[in-house]
């Protein structure tokens, strides 16, 4: 019974880790959506974000 419990625990951890991959992909995906638009607002965002790196401006 202990063996079954530990095997289940191990498999469960890796299932959680796989879900964590999906959660991290959502974080990455948000930015990718924005970048794909080259300055256009991402769906659901408040508006365009200024790309200030080459202008010497203040970060938005």
């Amino acid at each position: 019974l202990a063996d079954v419990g530990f095997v289940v625990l191990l498999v469960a951890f890796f299932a959680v880790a796989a879900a964590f991959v999906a959660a991290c992909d959502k974080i990455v995906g948000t930015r990718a959506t924005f970048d794909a638009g080259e300055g256009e607002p991402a769906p659901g965002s408040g508006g365009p974000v200024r790309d200030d790196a080459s202008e010497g401006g203040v970060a938005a």
Partner: protein
Amino acid sequence: MTAPAWGQLAALVAVLAILCPPLGWYLARVYGGSAAPGDRIFGPLERLIYRVCGIDPEGEQHWKVYAYSLLAFSCVSVLILYAQLRLQGHLPLNPNHLGDVSPGLSFNTAVSFLTNTNWQNYAGETTMTQLSQMAGLAFHNFVSAAAGAAVAVALVRGLLRRRTQNLGNFWVDLTRMSVRVLLPLAVVGTLILVSQGTVQNFHANTPAHTVEGAVQPIPGGPVASQEAIKEAGQNGGGFFNANSAHPFENPNAITDFLELALILLIPFAFPFMYGFMVGDLKQGVVILTVMLTLWLAAALGAMQLETAGSVKLTAAGANQAVSATQSGGNMEGKEVRFGPASCGLFAASTTGTSTGAVNCMHDSMTPLGGAIPLVNMMFGEVDPGGTGSGLYGMLIFALLAVFIAGLMVGRTPEYLGKKIQAAEMKLVMLYILAVPIVILAFTAASVLLKGPLRSLANSGPHGLTEMIYAFTSMANNNGSAFAGLNGNTPWFNITGAIAMLAGRFLLMIPVLALAGSLAMKQPVPPSAGTFPTGSKLFYGLLLGVVLIVVGLTFFPVVALGPIVEHLAGHFRL
């Protein structure tokens, strides 16, 4: 510190200065994808592995596929190791007729070696068969190191590549590191260790009759072959309970020096690899110098504190002076053939990397001397860290540093031309917060519950240090034991395994996501406002960020543990 101690440190730095740059160049070629030295020797073996395992070496992987490959490999291999330990009594190469490992201990040990931690709640010579040591634990010594290296290389590729979602191939990276770097290093290390007297055989215990009439079993086994990869892959799990303090693992000063060099060689070579891969050696040198600064400070501090001696031993009337017949200093828990300075150097090196091997008992170090390996691990294994994990850990701090610099001057931060935006900082925060939460939560729970407290050998601040050290070591995948804590209980076997799994995979996944995110970006050309990340200024900023982040997180518990113990001993409270 004595002249031999200074000499040992200087010789070690010199050897590393000679070997690390070419090894870094070699690693860059190994991971570069094109022709690399040794293709004629290693190529056929790699192709055989690819054919047997059905790997397409040309196939590139999206970061998610890379991460899933890592998880799938880890899940399957840990289950196989668990089964092997549970059945070892029925398997061959068991000359001492040892029984199966218990379920809880098998669980903890399988996770420990999977995660490159090598925390050991058992004594190897009385628990593990030779097959378990060779085919189970030593196998993971290779592949766990190679998996860490693969994640670091994926992050470097993420920084280098543009407008792609591919980071290479996990299976190819795992194979190439194992075959082309770790295996040759292990073979050479083994031969040198055997030449110096490290045991390598398949003998059962040999009974020795002592002058007092007792019978003492003298253990044998394939020790040297495991010892070499234990150090070269920053694993640290000893064949024997006493680890590198055991004369059959580490017989003399030459093997001690070799083991130190093996511990530090690959981690200090990785920044060079990084510099060569990104085509700007200055970037690698900045990473390297921060690692070197932290490691040297830790090594010098621990060596000095242990050679200066113990206040309590002085109060007890012990003579701790250097003389012709003794090495002087705090000799409690030290091997006479190594002395306190070697203990300090080994302790700083084994905890600065994610090795965890010991040549002295850390529990017997002076309070502040023992605080150094503890704090070293709290840095998150970045000085210089484990195989690959040191580099990606320091690159995470580098991204945090450029973000802070960007906040200070009001510009969007960049690193190697890649803009660091909200998504990247969220992933960096996940990385920075995961391990401290695990360490502090499990330690707090353990000191609040009566059961775990019964595992401690000491009470008061030293007991707290034993507890925080255990979870810091496990969560950071170090594996060194402070001792003074009985870890083979259901509580520590299970919570320790969870801490090790979390400390490994909850960091690797954000790193791979970060790599995927960065790989998709188009780099921007450097402008007048670009922060120079290959400069002395960035060295200072990066060092400061590491110290501040770790200090803010862990200073309270360090103050309550070793610092209080030091003050209490000093003022005889």
